[in-house]
C-alpha cells in the first residue's frame, strides 16, 4: 500500500476534526512542554550549584580531625584535636600534587570599631589561603609569611564586617579595630564572595595569620582544618591519597588504626549536590512523564471514540477497497500525527516556558538537547503505543456491520 496515500488520508481525516485533534494534542503538548521545562529547571539549578562550588575553589581539599576511639568509645568528628603545624610542614615538604596549603584556626567573637561592634568569626590562616579559596583582595594588601612568623596583629576584613564596622563609608585600611579586646590593624579588604551553597555569608569574616589566632586568642597548637589546593581538579584524588599517607606517618598510626583525620574534596561536595539535583531532575521528569502518559491515554481515548464514531466511514472505506492493514495504518498515522504535532508544539512551549521562568523568576534553566530528543521520541512512541489498540479495533471491524452501524 502506498504510505503517502495513507498519510494523506489520515491528514484529511484530522483536518475534518480540527478542534478535536487539537484537544487531543493538548495532553501531549502539556506533557512534552512540562518535560522540557522541568528538566531545564533541574539542569539549570544543577549547573548553578556546580558553578557556585567551583567559585569556592573546586580543587580545594579540606583536612579535618576525625573521630577517634578513646577508651573504646568513638567520639564525634572534630571532638579531638590532631592537626598540628608538623602535619602542615610534612605535607608541604612531601606532597607533590598540591600547589598550596594553609592551616586554619578560627574563633568567634565581637569585633569593635569605636562605637560600632559586630559579632563575627576570626580565621587564622597562612597567606596561601586566599589562593586556595580563589579569593581576591578588593583593597589593601594581604599579610605575609613574616606576619605569620611574628604572629602580627594585622587583619583582612570581609565585606560584611566592613559594612557593619565602617558605616560612614570611610576606608578601613590602616584603621585599628578590636577583636575580643585585642587590637588589629586593618591592612586589606577582601572582595565580596557572597553566600556559599549552604547560605552562609562568606564575607562575615576577619582573616589574620594563624599564629595570631593560635597564640593570642585560642592559646592552642592545634588547627581545626587544613586547606590544601590540588594541582588541578583531576589530580584531587591522587592528592587526597598522598595526603592521607603523609598524615598517617606523621600521626604515627599503626596499619590497623583508623585514620584520625578526614580528607574531603570539593568534588565530593559537587557530587553530593549533583546527586541531589539529579534526584530533582528525576523527580521532575517522573512528574512530566506521568503527564505524558496521561496525554497518551487521552490520545487512546479519543482514538477509541473516533473509531466508534467513524464506524460507518470505516465500513465505507472497506467496501471501496481498503484492507484491514490500510485502516490500521490510517488510524495509527492519525495518532502519530497528533502526537508528533503535539510534540513539536510542546517542545516550543517548553523552551518558551523555560525562558519565561528565567526572565520572570530568575531561576537558572538549561535546555538540554537530549531532553528535547527524548521527550519527542517518547511522544512518538506514545502515539504508536496508544494509537495501536484503537487502530487494531478499527481494522477488525466487519465491513457489513460497520456499514449498517447506526
Amino acid at each position, binding site marked *: *500500500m*502506498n504510505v503517502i*496515500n495513507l498519510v*494523506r*488520508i489520515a491528514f*484529511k481525516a484530522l483536518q*475534518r476534526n480540527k478542534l478535536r485533534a487539537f484537544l487531543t494534542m493538548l495532553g501531549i503538548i502539556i506533557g512534552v512542554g512540562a518535560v522540557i521545562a522541568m528538566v531545564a529547571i533541574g539542569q539549570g539549578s544543577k549547573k548553578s550549584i556546580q558553578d557556585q562550588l567551583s567559585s569556592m575553589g573546586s580543587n580545594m581539599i579540606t583536612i579535618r580531625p576525625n573521630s577517634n576511639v578513646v577508651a573504646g568509645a568513638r567520639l564525634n568528628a572534630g571532638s579531638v584535636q590532631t592537626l598540628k603545624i608538623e602535619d602542615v610542614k610534612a605535607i608541604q615538604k612531601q606532597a607533590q600534587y598540591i600547589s598550596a596549603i594553609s592551616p586554619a584556626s578560627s574563633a568567634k567573637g565581637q569585633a569593635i570599631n569605636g562605637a560600632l561592634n559586630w559579632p563575627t568569626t576570626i580565621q587564622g590562616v597562612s597567606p596561601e589561603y586566599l589562593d586556595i579559596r580563589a579569593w581576591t583582595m578588593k583593597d589593601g594588601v594581604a599579610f605575609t609569611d613574616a606576619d605569620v612568623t611574628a604572629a602580627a596583629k594585622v587583619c583582612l576584613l570581609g565585606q560584611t564586617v566592613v559594612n557593619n564596622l565602617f558605616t560612614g563609608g570611610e576606608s578601613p585600611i590602616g584603621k585599628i579595630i578590636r577583636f575580643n579586646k585585642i587590637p588589629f590593624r586593618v591592612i586589606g579588604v577582601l572582595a565580596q564572595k557572597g553566600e556559599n551553597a549552604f547560605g552562609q555569608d562568606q564575607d562575615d569574616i576577619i582573616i589574620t595569620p594563624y599564629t595570631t589566632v593560635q597564640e593570642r586568642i585560642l592559646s592552642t597548637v592545634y588547627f581545626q582544618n587544613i586547606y590544601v589546593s590540588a594541582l588541578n581538579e583531576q589530580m584531587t584524588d591522587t592528592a587526597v591519597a598522598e595526603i592521607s599517607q603523609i598524615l598517617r606517618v606523621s600521626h604515627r598510626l599503626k596499619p590497623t588504626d583508623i585514620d584520625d583525620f578526614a580528607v574531603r574534596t570539593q568534588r565530593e561536595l559537587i557530587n553530593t549536590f549533583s546527586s541531589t539535583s539529579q534526584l530533582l531532575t528525576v523527580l521532575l521528569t517522573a512528574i512530566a512523564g506521568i503527564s505524558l502518559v496521561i496525554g497518551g491515554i487521552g490520545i487512546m481515548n479519543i482514538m477509541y471514540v473516533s473509531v466508534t464514531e467513524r464506524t*460507518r*466511514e470505516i*465500513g*465505507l*472505506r*472497506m*467496501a*471501496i*477497497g*481498503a*484492507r*484491514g*492493514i*490500510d485502516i490500521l495504518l490510517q488510524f495509527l498515522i492519525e495518532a502519530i500525527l497528533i502526537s508528533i504535532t503535539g510534540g513539536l508544539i510542546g517542545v516550543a512551549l517548553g523552551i518558551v516556558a523555560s525562558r519565561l521562568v528565567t526572565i520572570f523568576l530568575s531561576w537558572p534553566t538549561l535546555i538540554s538537547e537530549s531532553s528535547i530528543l527524548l521527550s519527542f521520541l517518547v511522544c512518538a512512541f506514545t502515539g504508536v503505543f496508544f494509537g495501536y489498540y484503537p487502530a487494531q479495533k478499527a481494522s477488525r471491524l466487519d*465491513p*457489513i456491520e460497520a*456499514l449498517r452501524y447506526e
Partner: protein
Amino acid sequence: MSKKILEIQNIKREFRMGTETVRALKGVSFDVNSGEFVTIMGSSGSGKTTLLNILGCLDKPTDGKYLLDGVNIGGLERNELARLRNIKIGFVFQSYNLLPRTSALENVELPLLYNPGIPAKERRERAVHALESVKLAERLNHTPNQLSGGQQQRVAIARALVNEPVMILADEATGNLDSRTSYEIMALMQELNQQQGKTIVFVTHEADIAAFSGRTVTLKDGKVIKDCQNDNKRSAKEVLSSLPVSDDY
C-alpha cells in the same frame, strides 16, 4: 456483450444465531452478463441483503460458487476480497455514505487512494471526469452538507464509477430520495447503462424502480422465485418529463 460478469451457482448462506441456524439463502443461481441492468427485488427477509453482501464481496457464501468477472470468490481471503472490491465493484448505498466535511472531489478520489498504481494527477483527472459524467462538474468543491440528497447520491455514483469497475452495485440507492429525485437517479443509471455499457445490479424493494431495469430477479425466502426480462422497460427520462413541474423543488 455476452461476457458473464456474475456467475452464481447454487449459493447458500447460513448464519448461526446461538443454537439456531438461520438459512438466509437456500440455493440461488443466476448469471449477469456484461452490459445488463438487473434489479434484485424482494421484501425484507427475502435474503436480498445477504445476496448483496455476497455479490459485493463483503461476505462469502457458505456453499455454492460465485464467480465475479471470472474470479472465484470462495477461495479468497480478506485482503484479496478488499482488492477485488476496489477494482471490480462500485458501491452505491442508500444513505450515500459520503465523508462529511470533505469535498465532492475528494470523496470521489477516495477509492483511487486505495489503488497504489494511480498517480495523484491521474487520480484528480479521473475524479473530475467521473463527476462530470454525473453532471456535477460545477460542484467539485462542495461538501456533502452543501449538496441536496440527489446531488449527494450522484457524488456517490461518481465515486462508484471512478475506479472503472466491471459492475455497479446499488443498494436501495433511491430509498432516501423523493420520487422526482429517484427518477433522476434512475435516468442517470439508465444513461450509464445504455451509453457507457456499465453493468448495474440494483437491489430494491420497489417494483416501481425495478421497472426501469432490463431484467428483474425476484427473491423470496432465500430463493429466486422469478427471473425475467422486462419487455416493457420504462425510460426514466420520459417519466421525468411527464411529471408536473413542481415549484417546491
